[in-house]
């Protein structure tokens, strides 16, 4: 192509930016291929224009990926629920994921956000395994004035989930947010425990948990895709939350997850405080990635 030097340099820069964002080999090569094709047609293209093409490709790849909690089903009976509106059942949102991804913090942030929106919320402390996991969620509940159902470390996590659902139901709460223990997706016995939590919740309401969100650490690389695949297979995911994007991580691995599993992305975690949870927007995410406004 014409203007070879400038093009090669800006292409390389773009390639580096794409890798640095953890897009991985496949997505990076796809975006680069489109840009190269555009160059072939218009030989005066410059770096900024190349970025715009990259952004357009990514927006196309991510089309339909914005999850909306206030859409169908939220605030009322779950989809497919036959229960009459008078005996309202809580919408259950389960936070799952590998160790340290941000589940407990996200559960607290989401509870706070829903409460700010005028909804009523109960938290369920179903990480009965890790040292002080129960205390961690309880501390959040106290700090944010949220209702919580908890037992002790070593208790049966599924039993806590069952009790929390009953409590949320009897008090007429809108949402039940279930925090679960971190577990690597490669461990069958731990994945089985998750399935048990789901089975027990379904005794109360066959549609629960309506939301099964994988909480993904945005600073991780390609392993996030393996994680998503495995959790989806054994638990049937309905969405994603990507955390720790307040640093310089770009969380590009979620693009790979979305491409493969088409799971909507609900929220981004942008810090350690209650208000640091932002609804996911393709437009904002992609523009920030490519340095466009």
């Amino acid at each position: 192509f014409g203007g070879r030097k400038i093009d090669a340099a800006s292409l390389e820069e773009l390639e580096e930016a794409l890798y640095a964002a953890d897009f991985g080999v496949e997505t990076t090569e796809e975006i680069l291929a489109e840009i190269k094709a555009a160059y072939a047609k218009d030989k005066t293209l410059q770096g900024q224009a190349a970025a715009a093409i990259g952004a357009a490709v990514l927006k196309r790849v991510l089309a339909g990926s914005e999850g909306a909690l206030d859409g169908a089903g939220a605030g009322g009976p779950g989809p497919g629920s036959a229960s009459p509106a008078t005996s309202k059942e809580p919408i259950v949102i389960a936070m799952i994921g590998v160790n340290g991804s941000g589940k407990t913090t996200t559960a607290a942030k989401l509870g706070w956000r829903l409460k700010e929106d005028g909804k009523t919320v109960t938290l369920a402390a179903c990480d009965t395994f890790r040292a002080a996991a129960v205390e961690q969620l309880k501390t959040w509940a106290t700090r944010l004035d949220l209702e919580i159902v908890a037992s002790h470390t070593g208790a049966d996590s599924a039993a806590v989930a069952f009790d929390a659902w009953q409590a949320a139901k009897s008090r007429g709460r809108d949402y039940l947010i279930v925090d679960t223990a971190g577990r690597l997706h490669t461990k069958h016995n731990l994945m089985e425990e998750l399935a048990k939590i789901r089975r027990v919740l379904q005794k109360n309401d066959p549609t629960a948990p309506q939301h099964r969100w994988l909480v993904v650490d945005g600073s991780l690389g390609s392993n996030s895709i393996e994680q998503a695949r495995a959790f989806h297979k054994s638990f049937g995911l309905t969405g994603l939350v990507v955390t720790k994007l307040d640093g310089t991580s770009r969380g590009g691995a979620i693009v790979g997850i979305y491409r493969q599993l088409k799971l909507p992305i609900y929220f981004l975690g942008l810090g350690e405080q209650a208000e640091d949870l932002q609804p996911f927007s393709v437009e904002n995410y992609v523009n920030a990635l490519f340095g466009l406004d």
Partner: protein
Amino acid sequence: MFESLTEKLGQALRNLRGVGTLSEENMAEALKEVRSALLSADVHFKVAREFVERVQQQAVGQQVTKGIAPGQQVIKIIHDELVRLLGEGTTALSGERPLKVLMVGLHGSGKTTSTAKLGKLLKKRGYRPFVVACDVYRPAAIDQLEILAKQEELGFYADRVSKDVPAIGSAALAEAQAATADCIIFDTAGRLQIDQDLIEEVKRLRARVQPDEVLLVADGALGQEAVNVAKAFHDALQLTGLVLTKMDGDARGGAALSIKTITGVPIKFVGTGEKTADFEPFHPDRLASRILGM
């Protein structure tokens, strides 16, 4: 899952059959596969590029050994170089007594758990360890370390009122000395490398307690961000080693190569589970095979 590198290389190296000497040209395709394998293992793209260039320099001009498939020979060169790089330095900790260790890293990387794991390991080696809760932010972080310390019968210090982390460090040192501990491990809060206030805080803690070891605790599944993290933590705190956690999963662990290349500090320990016993000295050959997908 991943197509194994050996398989891919087998394809790429077909054109090496019957060749007498390795050259830039006849290895080009194979080295492209190596770069691609490193990138899929989350090795930083610049680190991957440098690594491939180095392997290329080593291999070019080598005679293809009779009786060995040239592909095998190239794979061996790559593997050996990776083992050499990853294994530079020692997994041994400083011999100082009392031994002071500072644990630092991003949020949720495994610092608190690794603090307890290291305490347990050193206790087994005859030390009298003491662990210190310097995370004054995360809800129940102090409780978490206290529970683990009790469980492993380690000395423990926390101040549930103060937010002055360097002062907590000093007080802990005095307490540990009074308890005749000979190994003091400081657990710190998770922090982003760009959070100036928190980086300043841990720098002041470091200056106050003068640790013999500063260990970066990093998630084995970390992505490209590993380079920024390693660089900033190393600049601020002069790291002495790396702890690679959550390697009981299927992460390829390429971040370790990035961090190693950027900082030059040895990889000392690997976390292989949630239990306090799941902690081992680092083995470079295992990680090399894993990164290469072999």
